[in-house]
């Protein structure tokens, strides 16, 4: 971020001061540290199983092969379908969740709200204690009848207490005078929330939104518990089952009938598939992170 700011203000040559250079080298070093394993992962996914076994991982695919992807894309319709489910669940879930959580957090942040304390305690309480897995499972399957529905993948993560408390802390810092002024000008609570609080809180909302999105994107636990229907498998769970099936086959030589599965490569290719689109969410949301920090910094 410092780099971006500097680039906006000064020409390149001036920026190359020794102190800056050191910073750059350090930063570059760390980004390379982060990048190399990622590149290795991608390269391994394109290597043949034999090549991997012989030479290990490298930055350039050894013995280039699409075998791993062929194995994964064997049922291409299923992969596409699971992508679709994951995208729907992630965006609907995090969008809806963000709406509900921010409204709840706003209510909790208002000093003039009488039930603030008991309600805040109620939210906080669920962070520490829950009913346990089996009652939760019974609730979802036998009372809400959500088993094998897409709602079972969305509903449980809609309100995350930790995120609510984060947002509440942020909202509590907004000047109460603003709301008073808006009220005097005739704004109702809804208008205050949507036209004053939300625009002032984009960095917070973007951060929580990203957390929530990632939580949905990376989840396979809910589908493990509640989904049997293959047409509702989200991507992570599909990949999890592909992996567990490969393990089952390798433990039971009866099953593979002489078929060689590119185990290592498939594992890597799955990781590539799973991070593919979500990596762009970071790029998109990062803007808000930067903005949030720089705004505060400049005005101070």
């Amino acid at each position: 971020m410092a780099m971006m700011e500097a680039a906006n203000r000064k020409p390149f040559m001036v920026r190359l001061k020794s102190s800056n250079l050191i910073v750059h080298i350090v930063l570059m070093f760390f980004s390379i540290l982060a990048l190399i394993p990622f590149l290795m992962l991608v390269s391994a996914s394109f290597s043949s199983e034999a090549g991997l076994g012989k030479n290990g991982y490298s930055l350039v695919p050894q013995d280039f092969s699409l075998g791993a992807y062929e194995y994964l894309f064997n049922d291409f319709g299923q992969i596409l379908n699971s992508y679709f489910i994951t995208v729907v669940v992630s965006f609907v879930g995090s969008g809806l969740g963000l709406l509900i959580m921010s409204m709840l957090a706003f209510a909790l942040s208002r000093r003039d709200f009488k039930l603030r304390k008991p309600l805040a305690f109620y939210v906080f309480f669920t962070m520490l204690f829950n009913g346990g897995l089996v009652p939760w499972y019974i609730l979802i399957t036998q009372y809400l009848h959500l088993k094998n529905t897409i709602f079972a993948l969305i509903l449980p993560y809609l309100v995350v207490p930790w995120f609510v408390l984060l947002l509440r802390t942020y909202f509590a810092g907004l000047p109460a005078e603003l709301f008073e002024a808006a009220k005097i000008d005739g704004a109702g609570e809804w208008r205050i929330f949507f036209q004053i609080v939300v625009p002032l809180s984009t960095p917070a909302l973007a951060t929580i939104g990203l957390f929530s999105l990632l939580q949905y994107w990376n989840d396979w636990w809910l589908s493990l518990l509640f989904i049997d229907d293959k047409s509702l498998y989200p991507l992570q769970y599909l990949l999890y089952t592909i992996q567990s099936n490969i393990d089952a086959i390798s433990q039971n030589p009866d099953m593979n009938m002489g078929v060689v599965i590119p185990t290592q490569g498939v594992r890597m290719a799955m990781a590539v598939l799973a991070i593919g689109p979500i990596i762009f969410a970071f790029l998109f949301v990062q803007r808000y992170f930067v903005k949030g920090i720089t705004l505060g910094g400049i005005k101070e």
Partner: protein
Amino acid sequence: MSKDANNDKPKSLNRRRFIKLAAGAAIAIPATSALLAACGDNTPTTAASTTAASPTTAAASTTAASSTTAASATTAAGATTAAGATTAASGTTTTAAATAAANLPPVELTYTYRGAPPKDLALVQEALNKLTQAKINATVKLIPIDPGSFDQKVKLAFAAGEKMDLIFTAPWTNDYYQNVSQGNLVAIDDLLTKYAPKTYASMTPASWNAARVNGKIYAILNQQIWVKPWGTTIRKDLVDKYKLDITSLKKYEDLEPFLAQVKAGEGIAPIAIDDQGGGVVFRPEFNGFDSILDAVGVGMKADDKDLKIINMFATSEYKAAAELARKWNQAGYMPKDAPPVADATANFKAGKSGVILHIVKPGGTIEYKTQYGYDFVAQSFTKPILTTAGTTATLTGISRTSDNPERSMMFAELLNTDKDVYNLICKGIENKHWVWVDKANEVIGFAPGLTPQTSGYNPNTDWMFGDQFNAYYIDKSQVGNWPKTAELNKSSTPSLALGFAANTEKVKTEVAQVSALVKQYSIPLQQGRQDPASGLPEFLQKLSGAGMDKIIAEVQSQLDAWKKTKA
């Protein structure tokens, strides 16, 4: 202006605080979720164990919506009355009155098992239902659950009192003994003899004893190879070249002259070994042991009337085997180092090995041929022993929550005796998934254009669904293997501890420690890579330090208790 400044300060402070918090969250969330996951792992067991204490209450409270479950499931004995009553009621169905099936009211069963849901599951289920409707007037919903989530899902379903009928169970997945102790499965002794007489008769009474817990049978045995006939499988070209009479081999030592010839003539270390224990010389069943806890070397002499649990590593048989292995290692009959399995396979393919020391089962030489590319001949050294672990490896139970235990048993009878039903669920639909290659000998192949990967239905787990000896052969070379294997099972001698299974819950830590030691010491010792003169005492000493005695005492006390219930 001043107002702005006032406003900004808390705001920017607030933003900073927020960023800090958010960073905290980024760290804390994975941590908490890990914690939660850990808790999640524990919850089902605790919850489940509470239900175990009072299975009836659990049934009553969880299935409030369907209070009939508990009643019908518990009255397994009253199944006849139920069947009788319903016969009268079904007088209305006149169309198919001729068939026996019509005398039964239509029911829907579920069959839950461990396997990836195949693409064409719905088609197979439809075809299956045509058969089952005609035969027992029942439709069956197939519920395969991915191996990775099977245990978790089934545990929850039992804990939540979900309706299920037939379910796959085994000591290694969806734990049979845990299910029995928690009351998840129906005792099926009466159902078995009444509704599945052919299945019951197809196995010896001794083998049914293996599935007994506290004197009752809680699951149907899926027949497959139950015994472990350890022996040797040798490349045919070497056997021919050195004129070995393979039938003359009765024990490991008998191999010695042949090994010497191969070593001299071919310049290779003939015995194939790998770092996972391939090629070890000590095998419990060869020495007449019932290895009750195989991973930690705890077992007993299968014919010991006193049922005395021993540390198999401390026996003279173990020592003799280790000494033999060492001798072979020194003589160069075994490689000096044990490579990873993949390398060992590559070595074998390249002709650097020739002798396999492993189980010799009907059709085994064919499997080795596909694996290594050579023709093989095999000879078993072992008088087969029927052990609990071998016999109960794959089971099918009926859930306590089943509304129709008697009809479930009828379906199980079909799975175990009706070749059409069984092979439909094992292999898929004729002409869609498979075609006859040789109908007289019941050999099938993939339908034209299909491979194991592209077939929409290829679970390839015959042993999951029923009597494997009813499965169609998938290669001509296999013809005749099933009757031979069945004979092997039948001719085996039951261990005197048949039906006993140890519960290691109380000695978990010790089992983990000892099995780590076993991997570290036993494999090198039995591949001759370590000198038993120094290695064996060290091994035994470490074992007692790791709590071997505690495991033995625990298993012995359980075995004594089991003996009392039996007498």
